């Protein structure tokens, strides 16, 4: 217990920006030796970024890390590891073709005369598993193990390097309840042997059960750091909220009560989506909220036909969608994809070609592009979104906000009756955000059915007429009117509130 009083890692005034987004702002926290220190917050609050900086994955822009009284700066995870700090990331970073033991000692194999000393490797592996109580077979191929076991391999790997501070980034995100229990035992074993665990998690129950200290982050800032005994789920959620509405949203214009159905989803299932049923009326903005990994983008892609579905129907107006982007566009459904770089833009092609891509069939005659018509319509669409007036510059030359506007212009040109907007304002500056909000509202006012996905609850609250919350692939709550509050959305997303039938 004496060790728990000393400061293992002292984080002082840490700051980090990604483009225009301030991910961490003057974060100061003391992590004590031998404790489990949890960081919680909404999506994008900065908790994962903080974990990555501690472990040398990302460099900070400002601030210092002080390790047991010595200032340190890591240029790589390797340097952090040399000082005893390891990270087990959300995405497992193992070599699937190698065995468990080979992965554990990868890059630090015991050698003899330039060859890997297999006997000594297995001996050390044996000692390590006995000491840590892990049930892993040295010769098993990592690629054939469950995710939970792979995670254990990663933890073992950090132990093999004598790491005494282990950052676990959303460790139970993809584990079964039984595996989660096992993970919790492992965490307790780690701290019992004097090691320190930094736990980044959005599962409040887990955090309350495991952590000695809990730090709540909001918008990259520390809201509070308290002993777990002083916190409850309610107090944590309250600390994660409480942000004033800082951006003005256009006034909501609700659709008439007799507005026809724009988008109708019945029993839709796809990888990551279970039995989703949802209607969006013409002129309505429906917000789709939930935690990262809850299946919102998967649902959007399944609706649009970007990824295959396993069951269910989607109709736009009277047309049943055939499940391909071509058919969806033809039926009047457009999508702004979550990742504009991966799924949206042709970065090296001119802006003009990027905007007209989805409408070439109507802009062409006998297979030839009617260039005057194309230019006129692209200019018109870019004006409507208040976007860049450049036409021939490559899309890569635009800022994030203007790239996003370009994708809106593409969607507008296709004259959709249904618009699915997946994270339309991610990485977009405040001014452009406001333009995009106006655009979404005016589109809805003109009778377009809008399905809006956003990690920012504030944005959902500011724009959506009705909100559907997803958790673990299912639609778990539908909120509108007075029931539409930040607390209600978060409660449903975290699973702390009783779910209402969607």
């Amino acid at each position: 217990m004496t060790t728990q009083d000393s400061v293992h890692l002292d984080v002082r005034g840490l700051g980090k920006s990604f483009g225009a987004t301030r991910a961490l702002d003057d974060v100061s926290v003391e992590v004590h030796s031998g404790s489990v220190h949890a960081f919680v917050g909404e999506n994008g609050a900065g908790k994962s970024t903080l974990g990555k900086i501690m472990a040398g994955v990302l460099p900070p822009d400002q601030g210092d890390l002080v390790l047991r009284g010595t200032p340190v700066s890591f240029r790589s995870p390797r340097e952090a590891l040399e000082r005893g700090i390891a990270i087990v990331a959300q995405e497992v970073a193992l070599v699937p073709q190698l065995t468990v033991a080979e992965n554990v000692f990868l890059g630090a194999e015991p050698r003899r005369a330039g060859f890997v000393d297999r006997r000594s490797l297995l001996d050390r592996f044996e000692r390590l598993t006995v000491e840590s109580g892990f049930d892993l077979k040295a010769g098993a191929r990592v690629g054939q193990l469950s995710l939970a076991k792979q995670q254990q391999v990663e933890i073992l790997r950090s132990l093999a390097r004598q790491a005494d501070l282990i950052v676990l980034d959303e460790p139970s995100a993809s584990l079964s309840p039984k595996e989660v229990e096992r993970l919790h035992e492992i965490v307790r074993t780690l701290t019992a042997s004097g090691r320190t665990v930094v736990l980044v998690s959005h599962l409040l129950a887990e955090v309350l059960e495991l952590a000695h200290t809990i730090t709540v982050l909001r918008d990259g800032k520390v809201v509070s750091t308290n002993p777990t005994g002083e916190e409850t789920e309610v107090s944590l959620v309250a600390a994660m909220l409480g942000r004033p509405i800082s951006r003005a949203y256009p006034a909501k214009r609700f659709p008439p009560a007799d507005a026809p159905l724009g988008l109708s989803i019945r029993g839709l299932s796809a990888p990551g989506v279970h039995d989703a049923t949802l209607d969006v009326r013409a002129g309505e903005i429906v917000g789709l909220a939930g935690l990262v990994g809850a299946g919102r983008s998967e649902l959007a892609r399944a609706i649009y036909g970007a990824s295959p579905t396993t069951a269910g129907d989607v109709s736009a107006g009277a047309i049943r969608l055939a499940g391909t982007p071509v058919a969806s566009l033809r039926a009047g459904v457009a999508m702004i994809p979550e990742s504009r770089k991966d799924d949206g833009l042709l970065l090296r092609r001119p802006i003009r070609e990027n905007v007209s891509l989805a409408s070439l069939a109507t802009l062409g005659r006998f297979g030839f592009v009617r260039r005057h018509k194309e230019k006129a319509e692209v200019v018109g669409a870019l004006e409507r979104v208040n976007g860049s007036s450049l036409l021939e510059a490559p899309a890569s030359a635009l800022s994030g906000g203007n790239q996003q506007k370009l994708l809106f212009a593409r969607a507008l040109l296709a004259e959709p009756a249904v618009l699915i907007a997946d994270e339309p304002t991610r990485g977009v500056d405040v001014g452009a955000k406001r333009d995009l909000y106006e655009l979404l509202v005016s589109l809805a006012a003109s009778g377009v059915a809008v399905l809006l996905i956003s990690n920012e609850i504030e944005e959902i609250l500011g724009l959506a007429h009705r909100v559907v919350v997803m958790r673990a692939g299912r639609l778990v709550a539908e909120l509108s009117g007075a029931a539409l509050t930040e607390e209600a959305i978060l409660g449903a997303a975290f699973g702390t509130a009783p779910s209402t039938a969607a």
Partner: protein
Amino acid sequence: MSQIDPVARDSDRGRLTARLSHAIGRAGILIPFAITVVALGLTSPSFLRFQNLANILDQQAGIIIVACAGTLVLIAGGIDLSIGAIYGLAGATALITASSVSTPIGIIAGLGVGVAVGLVNGLVVTRLRVNALIGTLAMSFVVSGIAAIVTKGNLVVAFDHPEFKQFAATKLGGVTSAGWMMIGIAIVATILLSRTTFGRYVYATGGNAQAARLGGVRVNGIRVATFALSGAGAALAGVIDSSRVLSAQASGGQFLTFTVLTGIIVGGTSILGGEGSIQRTVFGCLFVALVANGFNLLGLDPFYQQVTLGVILVLAVSVDAWSRRFE
């Protein structure tokens, strides 16, 4: 408040440099091409004679035709290593059919073989999801083997059918019909790529297949079409060359694949897809041909020619990678 965000400033500068490198990439092959023309014109008096230039055009006709079609494949994000094999099979097929049936049927048979193999290439890459490099390499073995079976491993000749020679060797205004076909195909391919919706879809498919698909492009259909066109181009080149010399053999296109890819890539069409043009390919192929022609005219050791081509190829790809580093 007046503080400038260092991150924002950095990305502005990055965008500017990106635009600059984009502009340099745009001029690309024209610069070394012009330098070579001037240098050869000054050092070798025979270079700029019409006869020498017409000869280069005639000799390069087949290569440039294949390269025009191959450019479509590369822009769409694929690669076709079977063009040499198709060239050999189509040339032999055309020659044999021309001498046993008739010249028109021979030409049609040769082209048909190319389109058929191209379609199979496309289906192997899209339906069977085989990487284009491997899929077309495998197909090149299959096609070469078939060509060897068809020709029984021999040189097939049709010296008794001089009418077949007219297909490629008829002169019009001092330029052979092969040269005119090459010019015609380069123009058609240019228009196809720059003016039609198909051309746009080709760029989109190679630039970002996922974005193209979500933007309503039938990505697989486009890929199959480019392979079919590449097969047709390789077949036409094979028919032209067998017509020119009234003989063909299965291994006739042995080195063609790499000569053509060198021309395309030196021209500045990216092997990563999404970028390139027919003009670049034509200049790239001519540049490679001029380097070879220059070595001949200046009486230099042909072994250095190979070394020079290798260096040029590395430089071309390196320039492409350099112009992409800001993405």
